[in-house]
């Protein structure tokens, strides 16, 4: 038969693979820088981000390194301040979405049956609608307060996560070790906690990475489209300064760069992690 798995001693931890992955480290550095900007930014900001430091759309100068924006506020300071809420929102949305999706996916995967099939079919149907559309539909129905926004983005992800985790759970429940656990009489709760969860954890981790990226992309886009939190954030900066591109490109280019660095970094980080997890589970 064909389970000639290698009896290799170097089963290795995830770190073992990550340590030698330059793309992972590039991503990690990019994300770390942006996170530091977002967290410590308000302390580092040279000016009050709401204060007027000069005329509007001034080019970069010694007092304002990245120039001023449409209201004559310091672009650099706004850039530094604009990440905190954005990161919190994205983190919250992804966490809520993944939590809900994981719970749903595992429940469906463990219970199966008709209810599960119907729910799964519904969630598959939801996935037909492009995500941004789904979020906009929710916003149209419930209005666009910052909290609604976060919840809408989270909701739009649930079906996807549930699908992935359902599949991962399905793989576990058809394994013999799961059967063995059933045979000793473990209840559903224990089965989920002790057999399913530890084994879908890598899938959850990768999925969380995916959902984080997608939440950030969605929030930035919504903010750009004018459904943002109303506070300073990068998507909104691009939106409000887009008209001045020819006068003061930095007011647009700077947030675009930060956003791009962050999202690209997230992707590299996540792909690196996924590669390492895959390499480890390949044994």
């Amino acid at each position, binding site marked *: 038969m064909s389970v*000639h798995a290698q009896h290799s001693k170097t089963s290795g931890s995830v770190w073992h693979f990550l340590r030698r992955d330059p793309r992972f480290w590039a991503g990690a550095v990019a994300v770390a820088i942006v996170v530091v900007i977002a967290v410590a930014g308000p302390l580092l900001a040279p000016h009050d981000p709401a204060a007027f430091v000069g005329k509007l759309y001034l080019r970069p100068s010694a007092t304002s390194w990245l120039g001023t924006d449409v209201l004559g506020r310091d672009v650099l300071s706004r850039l530094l301040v604009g990440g905190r809420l954005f990161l919190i929102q994205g983190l919250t949305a992804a966490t809520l979405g993944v939590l809900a999706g994981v719970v749903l996916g595992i429940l469906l995967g463990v219970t199966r049956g008709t209810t599960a099939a119907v729910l799964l079919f519904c969630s598959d149907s939801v996935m037909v609608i492009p995500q941004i559309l789904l979020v906009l539909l929710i916003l149209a129905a419930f209005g666009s307060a910052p909290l609604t926004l976060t919840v809408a983005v989270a909701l739009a992800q649930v079906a996807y996560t549930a699908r992935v985790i359902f599949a991962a759970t399905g793989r576990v429940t058809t394994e013999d*070790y799961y059967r063995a656990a059933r045979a000793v009489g473990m209840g559903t709760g224990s089965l989920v906690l002790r057999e399913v969860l530890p084994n879908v954890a890598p899938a959850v981790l990768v999925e969380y990475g995916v959902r984080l990226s997608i939440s950030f992309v969605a929030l930035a886009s919504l903010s750009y489209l004018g459904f943002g939190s109303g506070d300073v954030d990068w998507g909104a900066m691009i939106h409000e300064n887009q008209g001045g591109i020819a006068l003061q490109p930095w007011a647009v280019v700077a947030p675009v760069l930060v956003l791009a660095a962050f999202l690209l970094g997230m992707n590299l980080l996540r792909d690196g992690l996924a590669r390492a997890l895959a390499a480890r589970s390949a*044994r």
Partner: protein
Amino acid sequence: MTAQVHGLSIGVGGGGPLIVADLELELAAGEVVGVAGETGSGKTTLGLALLGHLGPGLQRRAGQVVSAGLELLGPSAVSGTQLRSARGRTIAYVPQDPAGALAPHLRLESAFAELHRAHRMEFSPQRRAELFERVGLPSDDAFARRYPHELSGGQQQRVAIALAFCLKPALVVMDEPTTGLDVTTKLLIADLARELAAAEQAAVVFISHDLPLLFRVAQRLVVMHEGRVVETGTPTAILEHAEHPYTQRLLAAWRLGGSPAPAADGTRQVLSVRGLSAGYGDVQILHEVDLSLGVGECLAVVGESGSGKTTTARAISGLHAEHSGRILLYGEPLAAEVGRRDRAQRRAIQYVFQNPWGSLNPRRRVGASVAITAQYLRGLSRAAAEELAVQTLLDVGLRADHAQAMPQHLSGGQRQRAALARALAAGPEVLVCDEVTSSLDASVQADIVALLKRVQAERGLSMVFITHDLALAGELAHRVAVLKDGRLLETGPTAEVLAHPKDPYTAELVRAARLAS
């Protein structure tokens, strides 16, 4: 000489470990050379090297391969077009899994046409028909217009062999061409290889880890171990004076034989299965199966792949509730679903799974996996359960420190022992062993069988031993039940069934088992 391998060493990357070391081999036309060896011993690597092919990341370190007068590997090896035109034409390859190796979008005749086209040769349907006839396939055109998925596994393998011999190659490498086939087809293929080698005057390299099969097919045998040839000679010579300890172990495993320990009390029924029918969704797999198992007895359930052996085992263990019929433990009917059985019942029947790679939770230490059974089924405290787990691991021949290991750090045989320990930790009365040795190497297989025999005797266990290997059944079981297509064909004391099979199918199985030995 058709082909020569001289001092060949192949390693991983620039400085990685050697996979094939210092290998010498000579092949003559019309000769079948068998290559044996446990998994990972370098058989495939050698086979592919004969075609001048190295897997990704592999490097030739020393030596050369000359096939049909062409240096395929070596300091002045041919490459490019020359190499390409040698492959398929002068040296052909028969892959292990024909289902995956035949291009799904090509009709059989197109596959032949493609091969000819690649070598700029005229394709003649007569040659194809002749070859099909020779390998025992229908030679008509309608058959040739089929797609691979319209063939059975054995037929696919024969098509692959026909393709390999099509351009009259000087050398054919067959890499485990019989894996996944049932015993009868296996023997047919082996005979075919031998006939074709003689008829087409080709040298054939027949790779397999099935020692009995090689004894039957090969004129010369090469035993590999850790990338080196440890033994070479005619089958008889090897049988008589095997020198290398590894070969000796292999032979010992094969000759093991023996008879089961006497049953404690064959008359009292531990377990009986009455009119068991089961299926998956709309498909019915088992039809009215009746089995009974006496105390201390070992019942072998024998049948080919897909006959419903695992399904039966799962139904008994309460893991396949989609069934009708009754399963009785000491005359008490058992609930279909394991969750509905009480603790004593769950504890009485323990299941050891077919595949050791999936039966232990990869995120839990081996010791904990074993301890859980004791905790749940014997109501032991955690500490007591862990202590018992260690004890049981020792019992099945593992070390105490294995309790702290993760399953992925154990070999297949070790895992199977751990899985057995998990079952034993419950203190069962009936052990259901589902092909517990089929995914293990021959030498490991023998150890496990010996272990099972021992624990059965020591603990007075009753056992349902599921296998597709009648020979193994003879060694362990007091009684045999033969399954085919989900129906019970016959059942009776092992010796009797082996000596006087009633059903023609059983007779066929018995004959195949004899032939193999």
